């Protein structure tokens, strides 16, 4: 399936890009992050991240659909 992934903060620096289109066999955010972690060498584990799907916080095990926008949210530091 095709997903759009956006990167922020340290994940963006590590991936070297703001966003990418991914064709993946992963059916949930957990599987997708595992695949992208291997590809880009992300050091943060799933336990330090939150996940957002189509602009809303979601569960790691939520089923992904064709064209979903997926964002892995590092610990925030606004303010």
């Amino acid at each position, binding site marked *: 399936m095709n997903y759009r992934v956006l990167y922020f*903060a340290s994940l963006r620096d590590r991936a070297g890009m703001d966003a990418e289109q991914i064709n993946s066999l992963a059916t949930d955010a957990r599987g997708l992050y595992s695949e992208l972690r291997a590809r880009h060498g992300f050091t943060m584990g799933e336990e330090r991240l939150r996940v957002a799907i189509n*602009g809303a916080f979601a569960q790691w095990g939520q089923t992904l659909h064709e064209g979903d926008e997926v964002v892995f*949210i590092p610990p925030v530091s606004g303010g």
Partner: protein
Amino acid sequence: MTAFRISAEPIDPAALARSLVHARAGACATFEGLVRDHNDGRAVQRLDYQAYAPLAQSEGERIIDEAREKFAIVEACCVHRAGALAIGDLAVWVGVSAAHRGAAFDACRYIIDEVKKRVPIWKNEHYADGESGWLHPDNTPVV
């Protein structure tokens, strides 16, 4: 006006404060977060804020709604900067008006605490030694 906004432009606190004015509001509490010249013992020269704008917007609005439910307030507003900021620049502004001061203070503090915990905005500090780093909520570096 939207109660929560991410702004690429400098924040105008006086204009925001005017939006909170109401004849039945006897108390107004505000909070300003400014770029400091140091953090965790290192000299900071400037910083960048990155935001995942659509989620930051909806999560920020949710926080303001929660504050309205929890505290007896009249108006509440929060604006957070994105982009490049210099020392002394206003990074975030929160303002709350209420009939009484307890609710104004409590809601103001609730909003800034939750924004710092939950809204997808990231601070990248640039240090005097030429390095930079993304920060955790507790202001320690992301490794």
